């Protein structure tokens, strides 16, 4: 693989194994840039990257912004409150207005699946998906894969458990697609009400037993459980979830010593993850954040260079 040809990053599904590897390799070089005193290279000098967020997000937006700035691109943040979108103006209108200011890339987050695709079809800018509804969050999956590969040297043959609200998780979907493509074996685990139908057809194994998943896994990705799920009848209570599915030091004793724990954040300490696990030696949570910038630099660099 010597040439990157994709002008957009819309989801993990559209990336080949080689393309994923190329992003990860490029990210390794960019990670070094972030460790310098002068954390900036002129690669995207003169380019404009717009963060167009229709859904609030601090982490992902900051990470993208930092990535763009470290590549010397100019950045603008636009947070669109969808409830204030006047009925007459569609999301496409908003995006076209942004594009009319001659921007080069639009990093978009929206609560509805497919919005980045619609933008890519209708706009000339490069579109990077920073999360579309419960569907896809490609840069999170890429940074998770980068983090695992950096620690364990490979992805192929690893057993990865994803635990939590799989139904509403774009992180779960994108990681499932990416990791299985790279040859890892993924088990999704959570309450039956929060496992989407027919997910086996996407290559996942399903388990309702977190202890079993701990015993078999090399890596576990824990997902945030939102309090609203209780109100919407998905769960009897957050308390019961914590008891049945929460990962604690006690539980981790059943697993391998080298079992790695990841979480895309923000965490609910004491619910899906106990504080001592979150801050413990097996936790990669802060490294994920560090690597997020490098991976997003790689993505911006590659996508903006594609002709």
């Amino acid at each position, binding site marked *: 693989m*010597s*040439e*990157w*040809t994709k002008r957009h990053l819309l989801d993990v599904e559209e990336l080949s194994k080689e393309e994923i590897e*190329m992003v990860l*390799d*490029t990210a*390794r*070089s*960019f990670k*070094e*840039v972030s460790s*310098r*005193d*002068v954390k*900036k*290279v*002129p*690669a995207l000098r*003169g380019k404009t990257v717009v963060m167009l967020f229709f859904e609030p997000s601090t982490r992902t937006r900051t990470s993208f912004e930092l990535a763009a700035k470290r*590549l010397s691109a100019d950045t603008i943040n636009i947070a669109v409150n969808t409830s204030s979108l006047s009925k007459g103006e569609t999301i496409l209108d908003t995006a076209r207005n942004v594009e009319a200011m001659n921007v080069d890339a639009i990093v978009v987050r929206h609560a509805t699946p497919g919005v980045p695709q619609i933008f890519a079809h209708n706009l000339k800018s490069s579109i990077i998906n920073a999360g579309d509804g419960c569907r896809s969050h490609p840069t999170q999956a890429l940074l998770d894969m980068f983090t695992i590969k950096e620690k364990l040297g490979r992805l192929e043959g690893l057993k990865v458990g994803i635990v939590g609200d799989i139904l509403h998780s774009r992180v779960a979907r994108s990681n499932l697609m990416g990791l299985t493509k790279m040859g890892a074996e993924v088990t999704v685990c959570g309450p039956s009400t929060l496992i989407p139908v027919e997910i086996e057809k996407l290559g996942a194994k399903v388990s309702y037993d977190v202890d079993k998943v701990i015993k078999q896994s090399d890596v576990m990705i824990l997902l945030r459980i939102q309090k609203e799920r209780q109100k919407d009848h998905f769960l009897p209570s957050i308390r019961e979830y914590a008891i049945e599915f929460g990962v604690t030091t006690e539980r981790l004793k059943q697993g391998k010593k080298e079992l790695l724990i990841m979480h895309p954040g923000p965490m609910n300490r004491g619910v899906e993850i106990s504080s001592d696990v979150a801050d413990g030696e097996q936790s990669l949570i802060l490294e994920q954040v560090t690597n997020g910038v490098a991976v997003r630099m*790689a993505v911006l*660099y*590659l996508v*903006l*260079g*594609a*002709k």
Partner: protein
Amino acid sequence: MTKIMDSDLVRRAIIRIAHEILEKNKGIAQLCIIGIRTRGVILAARIAKAIKEIEGQAVPVGILDINLYRDDLTLVGSQPIIRETLIDFDLNEQKVVLVDDVLFTGRTIRAALDAIMDFGRPSSIQLAALVDRGHRELPIRADYVGKNIPTALKQNVKVVLSESDNEEDAVYLEENK
């Protein structure tokens, strides 16, 4: 394709450059060598080895990928692949010798100078090239040259090094069509 340097010439050139570096810098104090990817890295390692043989002491060697600093990023087909830059020593107040295989327009060196500046403030930066083929587009010159080769613009200088090319060292002049 004409061979203009064989392996002996290359070997002697490197030893000579090592001597010249030591002579000009009066030894190895504050001296470091940084090779520009890809073949500059190999040459840097060889020069460092020669210096160690002469002085009995090693100099720090770094690797520089200048792609992020290129001025033609928007012109090339797709983004060049970025490889790691590895400079794990402080450049402040150091005498840096940049090493590249062929000195041509000078644009690569311009990018390398910018990159080096981002790492610190060396007391001086010097340039070593195995081949200087002329046709500079920027006010840049080499301090140490293996061989000056007058070329036509349409010609191509090809450097072959055993470490990267699995062939005996050589420098060729090719006619580009």
